């Protein structure tokens, strides 16, 4: 072989890092230290004596915690190897987790939040010493008020589902304040709204009514009207729904809810395609929330911290969580930010202090980097990317996009491999696992699978046309394999850190091992104890190394 180089294949030759890294407890060496603690000063020791010896016997820990003992670099190396065995959004074409808006999280924003003027701030410091963080928080609230059309915003919640909880908690408090808490016992949602709307409302004590779509896939207004009654506390809906279909009758939905005295709560997890296009308040909603880790670019952090933003109409503003950041303008025109305790109607604290401050600063920075035109561009390109992706996916034999045939979608599409499944017996889940072998993430969809063999793709504004083409190319390759070499798909993954994992270890209380401590108890290395995996040689390896 000699130059020139052969061209790259159409599908990436990928292999995930595979360090075969032990569970950290197996790396312990007695006596090693990872970090030292500053010593107790002689003057303190002289004054107080041996404080551990002075503890009442019942309060003095008998045996030290069995934490590993490791030198510092070994801890670092272990965790860096684990990080390499993780496919962050910065590494792949992360469009396979539809509904979750895996957009680019700008690196500058990670740098900006890393300064002591943010990391070393205590929330109960003198507000005069916290003017910067309070100003950013107040400004972001006002920006999100403009983007939603709402009157007031709170940034306290740590994720989208936590924000959904705050929505229903405020709705509950509103009806109670109006003397209707006892009568309004039902919440109506749709099957293509995020499951946390149903789950959080249930946790708040409500009965849940779930509306299914009409034959075209649009939310069924007639079914909503049949479900609404004086018992309804609220409708809690996503729009566009997880199908990517925008409900053109959304105003009629809100009006119908208001006609029976119910409130309308808008889950704006799917807002990325409508920034600057249409606003929650303009459709009449009383309350809505955004996920700053979706629409406003903060990183997803392996599953949090994210950040939620709750936006409300003037009527709901007294019910917002506290404390609130307020802006005072003095007689001389000077501006000062302060912290105000919650008022009497507030639902109180929903989380410690002011919310996920690093993500508040990141989201503020993202909006400041884009401005009004940039937000609109993000929405429009997200929608262009999605409709381009839709066209390309539908070119793959066996893929379909149920509902609203021939119509455009907003920012995502819920697709189906039903035809491919009928032809080959290969499921959507199996396709997703095989797709990971090409360095791509893929997700089926939320349960229940109303769309059969579902998958949901959301390309956001962050991915180039070439990257979208690459993703579709990998999907097409796996679909081809499903027809021609199904065993390759069925036995996937082949290029990952680990191979096909046995789920029966995870659902049986007798067998599951949720911590290393429980594992060692359930699978002792000697004696007659059970062996992990019921005699599989893997179990022997684990058990022996735990000795």
């Amino acid at each position: 072989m000699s130059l020139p180089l052969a061209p790259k294949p159409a599908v990436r030759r990928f292999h995930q890092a595979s360090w075969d890294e032990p569970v950290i407890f197996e790396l312990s060496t007695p006596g090693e230290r990872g970090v030292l603690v500053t010593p107790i000063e002689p003057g303190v020791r002289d004054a107080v004596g041996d404080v551990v010896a002075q503890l009442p016997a019942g309060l003095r820990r008998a045996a030290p915690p069995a934490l590993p003992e490791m030198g510092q670099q070994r801890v670092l190396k272990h965790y860096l190897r684990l990080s390499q065995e993780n496919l962050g959004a910065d590494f792949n074409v992360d469009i396979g987790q539809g509904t979750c808006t895996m957009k680019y999280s700008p690196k500058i924003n990670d740098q900006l939040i890393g300064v002591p003027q943010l990391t070393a701030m205590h929330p109960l410091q003198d507000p005069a010493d916290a003017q910067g963080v309070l100003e950013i928080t107040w400004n972001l609230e006002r920006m999100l008020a403009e983007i939603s059309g709402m009157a007031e915003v709170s940034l306290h919640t740590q994720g989208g589902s936590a924000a959904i909880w705050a929505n229903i908690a405020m709705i509950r408090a509103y009806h109670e304040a109006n003397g209707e808490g006892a009568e309004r016992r039902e919440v109506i949602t749709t099957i293509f709204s995020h499951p946390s709307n149903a789950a959080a409302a249930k946790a708040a004590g409500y009965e849940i009514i779930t509306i299914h779509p009409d034959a075209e896939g649009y939310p069924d207004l007639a079914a909503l009207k049949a479900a609404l009654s004086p018992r309804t506390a609220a409708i809690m809906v996503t729009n566009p729904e997880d199908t990517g279909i925008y409900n053109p009758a959304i105003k009629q939905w809100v009006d119908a809810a208001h006609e029976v005295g119910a409130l309308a709560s808008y889950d704006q997890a799917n807002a990325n395609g409508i920034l600057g296009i249409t606003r929650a308040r303009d459709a009449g909603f009383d309350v809505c929330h955004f996920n700053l880790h979706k629409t406003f670019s903060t990183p997803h952090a392996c599953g949090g911290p994210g950040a939620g933003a709750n936006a409300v109409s003037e009527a709901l503003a007294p019910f917002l969580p506290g404390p609130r950041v307020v802006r005072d303008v003095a007689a001389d025109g000077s501006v000062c930010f302060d912290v105000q305790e919650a008022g009497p109607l507030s639902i109180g604290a929903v989380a410690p202090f002011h919310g996920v401050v690093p993500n508040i600063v990141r989201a503020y920075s993202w909006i400041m980097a884009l401005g009004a035109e940039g937000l609109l561009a993000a929405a429009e390109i997200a929608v262009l990317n999605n409709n381009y992706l839709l066209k390309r996916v539908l070119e793959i034999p066996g893929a379909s996009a149920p509902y609203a045939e021939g119509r455009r979608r907003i920012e995502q599409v819920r697709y189906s491999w039903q035809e491919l499944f009928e032809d080959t017996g290969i499921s959507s889940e199996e396709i997703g696992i095989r797709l990971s072998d090409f360095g791509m993430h893929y997700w089926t969809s939320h349960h229940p699978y109303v769309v059969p063999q579902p998958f949901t793709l959301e390309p956001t504004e962050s991915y180039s046309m070439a990257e979208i083409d690459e993703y579709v190319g990998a999907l097409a390759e796996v679909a081809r394999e499903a027809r021609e070499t199904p065993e390759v798909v069925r036995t996937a993954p082949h290029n990952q850190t680990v191979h096909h994992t046995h789920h029966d270890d995870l659902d049986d209380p007798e067998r599951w091992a949720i911590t290393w401590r429980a594992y060692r108890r359930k699978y002792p290395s000697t004696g007659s104890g059970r062996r992990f995996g019921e005699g599989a040689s893997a179990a022997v390896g684990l058990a022996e190394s735990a000795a």
Partner: protein
Amino acid sequence: MTDSFVHPYIPNTAPATKQAMLDAVGAASIEEFYADVPAELRLGRALELPAPLVAEQDLARHVRGLLAKNRSTDERLSFLGHGTYHHYVPAVVDEVINRSEFLTAYAGEPYEDHGRFQALFQYQSLMAELLAMDVVNVPTYDGYQATATGLAMAGRITGRRRVLVVSDVLPAKHSKVLDFVRVHLDLEIVPTVNGTADVAGLASRLGDDVAAVWVETPSVTGAVEASLAAIADAAHAVGAILVVGTDPIGYGVLTPPAEQGADIVCGDIQSLGLHQWYGGAHGGFIAVADDPTFIMEMPSRLFGLATTDVPGEVGFGDVAYERTSFALREEGKEWVGTAAALWGIAAGVYLALMGPQGMRELGELLLARTRYAQQRLAAIPGVVLGDDALHLREFTIDVSGAGLTAAGVVEALRRDGIEPGVPLDAHTLAVCVTELTSQADIDRLAAAIGALAEASTATTTQETRA
């Protein structure tokens, strides 16, 4: 957007690409994609937002300028706690959680995201050793939520409504818990005596309609509950569940609640390797025994060990996924969603670095510094300790005997760059010390409050600030 608008975060704003994609889908303009949005709902104007700083250098200058208005606890001497704590964060912790692979990942399968599953399984396992319990969740939002869920679990398990609150609880935490559980549970406060639980008072109110006894240790005042075993026995005698809200920072030296009979142990992990972040870095843990009765009531994800097709390979996966709202919507236990996973990884790295010896030394240091600060402040004429309990990290002083108010002390000391603590009422100040407040720092605080007290008693006409 105008045709000339090209942004680094949005590659397909490049005009030729945008046109090629429109052509590919047969659309004349992007406007076509919004056909389902009724005209009456279209905004029809530009959003009113500040002019953007599209060049990265301009954005950086702007945001750094705003943050430069802050004066952090590096520049002030802080004795603030009350829910967010100033502990040292080892460099390796930040190095790991700032890795792009972890920071930008989300919801990959245990194949391409093996590292995330292992790191969080290890977090669960390291916390389990510290707490001496077999099961710990992937973190929920914060200690408030963890405790609210722990109590709600107790309600579901027992089918009862009454919860007896026997400790002094952080007011904001109490507020959150109350609003979360009030449909299902009734919280009844059993007033504390001398800083900790009134065991006799508890016994007189216990009955077979009590779902849970809720202990906070350390309490909002930093008091460590000394009668936990007796409380556990009393609760268990009527079939109630003992829920203990705690901060895990002391369990290198203190007996973990599970070894004194706690059934559900919950709290916050901010102390374990997370910066203060203006109160914006919290994660909640819930720990229980390896008992399906408890585990199946947990809403959070639980990662477990699994075998794979290859002998010797260690895999991971979700344990009992069918409990969750991901699987069952409203029929799941509460809900699960994006919460605080990265903070869990941070806490795991922290515990691995500290090891048993580090956690023991830190626990001892915190007890010693707390005791020392109590001695120094109580030596000021007119200043007395709030109670006689054992304290970890936080304690209260009553300054009324020195002619002072808590708010007055705060206002006066802030002028010297000291945050002396958090006023709990007119005369009570909650003071917090950690490994970052040295003997010299504590001496400086004592001298400053001592000088105030002296000036107050010397000048009887001095204004006392409310």
